[in-house]
């Protein structure tokens, strides 16, 4: 029998196999090539994003207020941990053997679990071959003690990170702090990845985009163990990370620190503005905290709950968000509006009759200037009555309705009752009541001036933030206009934002201001004025005190609490350099007792660089006010 034809079976096996493989290769490498190219990219090419350190912040004098400090993470890769001596390692880190093991266990569990459809089991995201931070955010000092011994422990290495540092430890409520992004932020903005830091408060939050800089991208080739093997195509597509340019604030960090010193053991605020530019020189919120306490996850975990739980609310930015009744400082505005509306004249006089509102003992004011000096309650009651009930309608109810709205419009032009466009988050608008407000609370046509008279002396429903009040001081200094108060002077030499170069005019003509301003001068410098303690040698200061009565509802009964002490001022009288508002909560006494001297100390410090009135300084610093808890 001849089996030679069987060679064809074998030959056809060879040929069919060759053809089949050729076809399959053609399919894979030519037809379906994109699928595999994508898969190859997914496997071996990694896009590493490099986040630059955040922008450095300077104050108006070029002092570095916020900088970046290098920190280290101690990384571990379990797969590479050979002959791991937990005892010796723990000793190096100051931990016990069990603590080391617990930490590793915590890392494994902390990575979360997911459902694996292949094994049909829930399994952890943790992988032996990936690096995880065994210890986070070690300082250079701590790391220098560990690093020399790390070669004994395979699988451990150091990684450099950067964190914020605040050399002055002040201005926390202005600067804000950073913390890790949450899932919503990751979803909303592609810039963020898990564990990225984002500005959580203050200007860090408001200027997040300006602070974070431009990310760099590096395309690398990675191994199956996720190690970098080389750069992709010699870095042809790589871009470098660009740190955001330096940010210069209008803040004077020395003044800020001094203000915080003065406000120790008190609750309240100091806001100082440079009237000619609208730059905020200092914004003290008392009590405050050291911004370095909220740097890094470790610190945040430790201190944040304490700060949140503190009954004095150090995290609360009072100057921006705390709405106070302005008290007598409000009278300046009533006088100006009255003159502008021509319901009073600079030399109008009203008797201090104390019939409707109380007053302290002084001679009846015969002019606006004198009324401001004495802060005469009946005078301003009368002025405001004339503003609000101008006699345009027969019914005094309807008349008040119209008058109040005119009055509110004036107030809005002073930046009150509206949110200022200041470059910080957490601002509140305060409250300037208008007809709608009272219609809502009291019923339409159910109220007239006599019902709402408290607003004439800055009590009742009127509420403003200290920042707004400081802006009023700046308006006084400028005699009728203001630049929106702002923090950032320039970014990368450019600035400020065009919005802050727009002069906002109030509805009161400049010609009416000198009468009020003169009253403010007398208030400080003349006998019988309410703020003699605000005097500074060689400087003409204009100021106005406020004493805010406040009540609190406790168990259904109104309890009168100690007065707030308020003072607004600017100096010098001609060509003013600083406008200021000071609030001291529940200090007792009047505006002249606590707020006025505090303001004068800040002004003195700013204008002269030092404070000569040591006795005054000591008195303020030693004072423990505001029902301190």
């Amino acid at each position, binding site marked *: 029998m001849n089996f030679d034809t069987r*060679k064809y079976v074998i030959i056809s096996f060879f040929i069919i196999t060759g053809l*089949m493989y050729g076809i399959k290769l053609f399919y894979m*490498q030519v037809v379906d090539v994109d699928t595999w190219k994508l898969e190859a990219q997914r496997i071996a090419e990694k896009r590493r994003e490099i986040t630059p350190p955040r922008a450095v912040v300077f104050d108006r004098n070029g002092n570095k207020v916020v900088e970046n400090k290098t920190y280290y993470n101690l990384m571990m890769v379990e797969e590479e941990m050979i002959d791991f001596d937990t005892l010796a390692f723990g000793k190096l880190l100051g931990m016990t053997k069990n603590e080391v093991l617990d930490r590793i266990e915590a890392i494994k569990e902390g990575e979360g679990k997911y459902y694996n459809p292949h094994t049909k089991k829930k399994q952890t995201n943790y992988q032996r071959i990936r690096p995880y931070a065994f210890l986070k955010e070690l300082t250079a000092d701590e790391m220098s003690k560990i690093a020399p011994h790390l070669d004994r422990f395979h699988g451990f290495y150091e990684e450099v990170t950067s964190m914020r540092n605040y050399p002055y430890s002040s201005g926390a409520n202005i600067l804000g702090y950073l913390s890790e992004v949450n899932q919503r932020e990751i979803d909303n903005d592609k810039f963020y990845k898990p564990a990225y830091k984002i500005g959580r408060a203050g200007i860090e939050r408001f200027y997040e985009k300006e602070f974070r800089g431009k990310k760099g991208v590096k395309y690398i080739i990675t191994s*199956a163990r996720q190690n970098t093997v080389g750069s992709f195509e010699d870095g042809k597509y790589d871009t470098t990370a660009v740190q955001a340019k330096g940010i210069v604030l209008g803040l004077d960090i020395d003044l800020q620190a001094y203000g915080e010193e003065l406000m120790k053991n008190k609750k309240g605020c100091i806001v100082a503005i440079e009237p000619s530019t609208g730059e905020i020189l200092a914004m003290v919120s008392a009590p405050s905290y050291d911004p370095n306490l909220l740097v890094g996850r470790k610190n945040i975990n430790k201190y944040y709950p304490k700060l949140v739980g503190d009954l004095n609310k150090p995290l609360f930015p009072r100057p921006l968000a705390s709405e106070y009744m302005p008290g007598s400082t409000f009278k300046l505005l009533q006088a100006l509006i009255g003159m502008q509306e021509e319901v009073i004249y600079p030399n109008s006089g009203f008797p201090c009759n104390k019939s409707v509102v109380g007053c302290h003992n002084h001679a009846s004011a015969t002019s606006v200037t004198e009324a401001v000096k004495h802060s005469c309650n009946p005078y301003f009651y009368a002025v405001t009555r004339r503003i609000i009930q101008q006699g345009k309608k027969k019914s005094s109810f309807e008349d008040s309705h119209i008058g109040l709205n005119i009055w509110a419009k004036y107030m809005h032009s002073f930046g009150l009752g509206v949110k200022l466009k200041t470059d910080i988050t957490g601002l509140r608008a305060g409250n300037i009541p208008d007809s709608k407000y009272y219609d809502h609370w009291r019923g339409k046509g159910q109220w007239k001036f006599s019902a709402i008279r408290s607003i004439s002396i800055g009590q009742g429903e009127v509420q403003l933030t200290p920042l707004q009040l400081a802006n009023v001081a700046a308006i006084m200094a400028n005699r009728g206009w203001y630049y929106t108060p702002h923090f950032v002077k320039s970014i990368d030499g450019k600035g400020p934002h065009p919005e802050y170069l727009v002069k906002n005019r109030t509805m009161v003509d400049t010609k009416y201001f000198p009468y009020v301003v003169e009253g403010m001068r007398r208030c400080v410098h003349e006998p019988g004025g309410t703020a003699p303690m605000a005097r500074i040698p060689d400087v003409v200061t204009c100021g106005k005190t406020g004493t805010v009565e406040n009540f609190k509802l406790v168990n259904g009964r109104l309890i009168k609490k100690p007065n707030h002490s308020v003072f607004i001022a600017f100096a010098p009288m001609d060509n003013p350099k600083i406008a200021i508002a000071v609030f001291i909560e529940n200090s007792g006494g009047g505006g002249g007792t606590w707020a006025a001297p505090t303001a004068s100390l800040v002004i003195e410090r700013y204008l002269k660089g030092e404070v000569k009135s040591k006795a005054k300084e000591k008195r303020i610093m030693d004072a423990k006010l505001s029902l301190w808890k």
Partner: protein
Amino acid sequence: MRKNDSITGSFDWILFGLYLVLVVFGVSTIYSVAYNPENPSIFSFDEIYGRQMMWVGISLFLGLLVFLIDSDIYRKFSIPIYLFCLALLIIVLFMPPINGARAWLGIGPFGIQPGEFAKIGTAILLANYLSSFNVKQQNGRTVLVSLAIIAIPMLLIILQPDAGTVVVFTAFFFVMYREGLTFDPIVLKIVNIIPGVRFKSTWLGTHFIPILFVVVFLLVITLIVGHTPLLFDAYPGHEFSGYWRMFAALLTTAIIGYLLMRWLFSKRDARRAFIVAILGFSMSVLLTATVHSTFKSLPSHQKTRIELWLGIYEAEEGTGNVGDGADYNRRRAMTAVGSGGFTGKGYREANIANTKTNHVPECETDFIFSPWAEERGFIGSLVLVVIYSIMLLRIVAIAERQRSKYNRVYAYCVAMILFYHFAINIGMNIGLVPIIGIPLPLFSYGGSSMMSFSIMIFLLLKLDSQRKDVLN
């Protein structure tokens, strides 16, 4: 017996040329894959390319040695050589295991694998047995003795265990088939048990080996390909299930097979070829459908076991692999091959199949086709497939021109062993064959495989060069 004056006699330069081309391609790929800038010299023995150069040198020396010895010696000493190989296979079982198998004899990188050399010993003895004068091809006894010659080393290798080499030993079944050995007596005995059935011969028994091969191959392919549906990016929602792909592939194969048979056979046979194609196609479809439905009806734990064996899923534990763990090795190798594209990424530009990135494990040995395909693209891959195919056809041509049956059987043994290695190795790199760890002949890194394939081919060249001296 007449001796040729020239030592080379009528030397087959084509086969030798193909051999050299493959060796050079192989070393260049190993160099690319394992390139270490600290030891850039190809002769640096600290690196695997340096060691491979050494193995190539040793292999060429052994080849020369084989060539210098008279070819008759191998025939006469076929039984001692075979027994020596068996002895080595027994000794190796007492060696310490490396990677879970007692396959290595010797120390470290200079060890040898007796399993590789046992193929040669078996080939020589099988050739010797089948060419003996007293062997009748149609005899059941012949089949059993041949099977025994193949099965003894196979069993010893199973004990190591080295599944890949065991599979390769089934290559000898095809040689038996070519030589007319038939399983018909065995099949008939079973079939004729059925009352009323009296077959004199069955087609199944006569062509038992190739049919078995086709059945196993289709079974495996069905299970692998049937799992992965083809998705069209342009038409989301439309998918082409793996079984439809199988159907399409079978249809294509049937048409190509029919055309080939028409071309190869005489006109009279063309009609028969048509019937064979139709019959083969419908049987394959039936088989595929059966496998599919059987597999679907299996309990899930058995499914998983089969999937693991096929390499569709890889056991996750201890692999250290990143990612899903499913089908890891095959998928990585396929990624390397597929991402090569038409022209490839360029020499030493492979990112996936690279010992440094190590995305494809064993990319210098079992998976060496993937760096080659990644770097040289479709053109390079096709060139390699064509070279191997030409080499195989050349060996068949050499086999068929032999006067001595001994030479022919040996040549077919070489052809079939090379075919198995080629088909399995490249097949698993392109996802057509389950992962079976055997090297790509003359290409993969490794001393034993280099030496054994070299000896195999040089012995063939020697036999061929002296073919005219032999009287059948």
